[in-house]
Structure formats: C-alpha cells, structure tokens
C-alpha cells in the first residue's frame, strides 16, 4: 500500500544542510496502522510530512528515496498530480488542531474545501454534517458557521479529522494527533481514529512519541532514533521482546498499571546527537549501556524472528533482566 524506501531528508539552514532522516524504509499495509515512534527530533514528523511532499525548499529537501502509494512514486509526480493525490487519496491529521485550522475560516468551509466542487452545494453540506456528527460533533448543522477559536481543542481535532476523511482517502497520516489535547479527550480521539480505520479499511501512519499509545492503536511499529530506523516489526513482538537497547529503554518508560513497586519512570540518560551531514557508527552508542567497539560502525537492519533491528548487540539476551533490576 504505502512503501517508503531509503528516504533521506535534509533541512536547509542558510547554506547548510542538516540531515534529519536517513535511509528510512518501511511499509504501511492496507487496513493497518503503523506507529512511527521516537522522541522529539528523531525525524518521525519529517518522514510523515515527506510522504505528503510538504518538506520542500526553502525549508528542507527530500534528497533521496522513494515513497510509493499503490505502486506510484509520489516523489516523481508533477506538482499538480501530487496535489490531486493529496486531495483524493491522503488525509492528514495535524498535531495541534487549534493552530492548523485557519482562524479566519469557518468550520464548514475547512471540510468543504476538500470536497469536489462538482458535488452540489446542498449535498456537500449534508455530507459534512453527517460526517461531523459521526465524529462526535453534536449539532453540527448549527456549528458549520462557527470559527475554530470557538471550538475546544478536541472539537477542532474532530473537525481536522473530518477534513482528512471527507475526501475518502486510502491513507491517513496522523502526526501526534492527541499530544495537544486534554488527557480525557485523548482517549476518545484515539478510539475514534481506530473505529474509522476499521470502518473505512484505511491505512494509517501514526506518528507518536508515546509507545503506550502505539501499543493501543498500531499493528506495527517503526522505532526511530536520530533520523534512523532502529527497530521495526509487529507491535506485540516489539514491545514484549524489544531487541534494540533504545526500544528497550522506551518500553521501560511505559508506566505499568500492574507495577506495584511504585518505581519511578525510567529516563534515558544523555541527549540524542545533533543532526549532521556525515555520521559514523551507531547514533545511540553514546547513551547505550551495551556499547562496544563494534558500535563504531553503523549496524544494518537485520531480521530476527520477524522483527528488524539495527544493533550489533541485538541478540544479547541478558538485557531484559538488567532493565527489570533497575526498576
């Protein structure tokens, strides 16, 4: 369905380039949700925006790779064809819905813009109202004329989701869609997204920094660190038996309701490396408890029981015990 191969993206600062995403490859199968997990600055949002070709000069540049949607390489499309694809096939759910909705534009219009003008006006209106109602916006008919600032964050996100779904997309890209919302709203939005995926058989690329959220929603996860994929595979596999030390640390950071020891959440010591032009070795090595001489060379992704890991120490078994001890 969506196949990303060897994607490399750089941001442009004056005359310097800093590579934010390097050699990223993964697939999003039809009807499944893939979680793109990593801390801020890991390049996960950049990947998501690159799929829609929203990273472009003067901000940044997609340097290499391919992004295929149903076999068509989006990076090779003309601007016009790309617009048509965005308009028809891809829906985007932003991180902060209150900032993403043009403050001067009425709610109804936001959704309406994604519908074909060939559909009669009354029909479009009915469509928008039923869509908003199905997404939990009550009295949608009376609220089409409202402005975004009159809506709460959760309501704005429902409008943004309606905007993404109105065009009947094949793929939905959600960029931390619940981060800016209240905790109570977060869950309902996540449920809503999952229900819509099932109902419409959508493929979904779900960007999040929260492995717990990915666990709830995603069939597959792709873990990114410093612009590179360090581990990817079926969610249950990855979370139950994390093979990469970074993933392990992330899993350790999920609060466990069953954990009665009242242990503190574990933080990962150190800072991720700054984006740079060239890099040798594993980017996680400086923070890694298992780092060894081998880590001075960048490890390739290799398969290990259905999960792909980029780590020289991926087979080392005693690590989960170490994590358990430190708790």
């Amino acid at each position, binding site marked *: 369905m969506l196949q990303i191969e060897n994607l490399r993206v750089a941001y442009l600062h004056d005359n310097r380039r800093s590579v934010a995403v390097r050699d990223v490859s993964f697939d999003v199968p039809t009807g499944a949700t893939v979680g793109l997990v990593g801390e801020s600055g890991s390049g996960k949002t950049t990947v998501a925006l690159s799929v*829609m070709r929203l990273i472009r000069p*003067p901000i940044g540049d997609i340097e290499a790779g391919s992004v295929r949607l149903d076999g068509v390489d989006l990076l090779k499309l003309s601007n016009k064809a790309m*617009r048509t694809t965005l308009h028809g096939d891809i829906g985007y759910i*932003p991180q902060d819905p209150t900032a*993403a909705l*043009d*403050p*001067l*534009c009425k709610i109804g219009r936001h959704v309406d813009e994604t519908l074909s003008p060939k559909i009669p006006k009354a029909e479009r209106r009915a469509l928008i109202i039923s869509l908003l109602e199905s997404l939990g916006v009550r009295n949608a008919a009376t609220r089409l004329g409202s*402005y975004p600032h009159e809506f709460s964050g959760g309501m704005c996100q429902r409008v943004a989701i309606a905007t993404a779904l109105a065009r009947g997309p094949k793929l939905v890209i959600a960029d931390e869609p619940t981060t800016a919302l209240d905790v109570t709203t977060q869950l309902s939005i996540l449920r809503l997204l999952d229900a819509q995926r099932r109902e419409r058989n959508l493929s979904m690329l779900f960007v999040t920094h929260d492995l717990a959220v990915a666990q709830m929603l995603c069939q597959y996860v792709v873990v990114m660190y410093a612009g590179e994929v360090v581990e990817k595979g079926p969610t249950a596999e990855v979370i139950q038996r994390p093979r990469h030390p970074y993933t392990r640390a992330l899993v350790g950071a999920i609060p466990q309701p069953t954990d009665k020891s009242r242990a503190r959440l574990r933080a990962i010591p150190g800072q991720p490396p700054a984006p740079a032009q060239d890099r040798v070795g594993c980017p996680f090595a400086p923070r890694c408890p298992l780092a060894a001489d081998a880590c001075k060379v960048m490890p390739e992704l290799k398969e290990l029981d259905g999960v792909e890991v980029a780590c020289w120490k991926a087979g080392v078994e005693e690590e989960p015990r170490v994590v358990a001890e430190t708790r």
Partner: protein
Amino acid sequence: MIRYTLQRLVQSLIVILAVVTVVFLLVRLSGNPAQVLAPLGATHADIVAIGDRLGLQHPLYVQYLTFLSQIVRGDFGTSYGFQAPVVQLLATALPYTAELAFVAFAFASIVGVSLGTISAVKSGTWIDGVARFIGLIGQSVPVFWLGIVFVLVFAVKLRLLPAFGAGGPEHLILPALALSLRPMASITRLSRSATLEALRADYTLFERSKGVKQSVLMRHLLRNMSLPVITLTGIQLADLLSGSVVIETLFGWPGMGLLAIQAINLRDYTVVQGVVTVDTIIVVLMNLLVDLSYGWLDPRVRRRVFA
C-alpha cells in the same frame, strides 16, 4: 458590538476635544492675536477694536465655550488673511486633499500588497529584490525631493505632465505618485513579512496537505496577511496627511496642506485652527473606522469585544 462601538466613539471624541482644546490654549496664550492681525502702524484703539471683534474682552473660559459651540455648529470663524469664512475655505480645500490622498493610498496599497505578497512567496528572486529596494528607498528618500525629481524629469525635461496646480486628471499624476511612495514602502515591507509569517504558519501546512488549488491557498494567505496590514492603516493615514502637506505645497495643489502653509505665512490663526481641527477629526474617525473594521475581519476580535 454596539457597546464597543460606543466606547470607541466616546474615546475618539475625547481625543478630538483634547486636541481642539490644546490648539485653542496655545493660540490664546501665545500673545494677543489682535496684535498679530492688526496691520502695520495700527493704533492701540485699532488693536482693541480687532480684539473686541474676536471676543477677546471676555474671560478665557467664555472664549473657550464660545469657540467650542461655534465649532460644533460648523462655524470656524472668518479668515482675515483670505477675507472669507474659514468653513468655506476648508470646504473648497478638503475635496482636493481627499482626492490626492485617496488616489495615492489606493495606488500604494495595490502595488504594496501585491509586491509584498509576491516577494514573500518568491523569496530570494529578483522581484523580492525589487520589493526590498522599494521598501528601503521609500522610507529613506524625502518625498519633497522625489517630487522635485519628478517635476524635473516629467514636467521640465520630458514635458509630459503639468508640474503645478490642479485641473484635469493629468495634474493629479505626479503629486499622487510622489505621495504614494512612502506608504507604498511600508505596505510592501509589512505585506512581505506578514506573508512570510503566514507561509510558515501551521494552517498553511494543513491547507497544503489538503491538496487544495493554489487559488484557494492564496485566499487563505491573503486574508491572514491582510489583518496586520489593515491594523496599520490608521498610522499610515497620519503619515499620508503629513506627506500631503509637503506635496501640496510643492505642486501647488490647493488642498488643506497648502491652505495651512499659506495661512501660516499670513499669520492667520483662525485658518490654521480650522485646518488642524478638521484634520484631527478625519484622522480620529478613520482610526475608529479601521478599529471597527478590524473587529469585523477578525472573528477572534469580533467575538471578544463585540459580544
């Protein structure tokens, strides 16, 4: 909405009253106006007679109240320098200034907004260079010098356009062009940075992700960038009025500015007072209009202050 409008209206009236009062006091306290008005060689009796005609024998507050009530009735007194009622002079001059300012401002807005927007969208290209050049030159070159250069080139050398006075539309071109440069510069600069701001905003990314047509994207962009541009219309209007005094003097354009300068040379306070009062009322009312229209254009402000 009505409450906010009324509140702003009252504030505007206070500003007008304050300016009128200050001008009145300055004129009355600066010396004996009758002395100034009297022709050379006038006797003391002559001066007292002139003073009585002006109402100077009454105490200051009586003079002030009389003055206010006259203004409210639209009576600005009689000009001794021009031998005519001041209202009549103002009524003749005002349309000229309005015409000049309107044409200059319309031209400046059209060019400034388009140039600023295009230069932001095409950041780094030659048109961006042009916009930045205009933005810089427009705030550095004095309009009176620019006017002189225009006269020299278009009127004296090329003999294309008249350099002096009012008449057909061709008389308007040079003064309006010279007057428009400065507001054009600031509108260009502001439009440019407002557009850059809008281009970087989250909502633009979201609109792009929808795959909407360029024209739709442009509409979002233009609406958002227009807000800060409109906010500063009030300040620009003050700028424009200042500029028109210089331009009118330079081109002999018979508007309010030229009238005021001529009145100064004739030491005719009543006319100066009238011009300043009317100009103040115009500026204050225009600012009120801008404020209210801003409330209408920005739904966030509208609901907050108009509720």
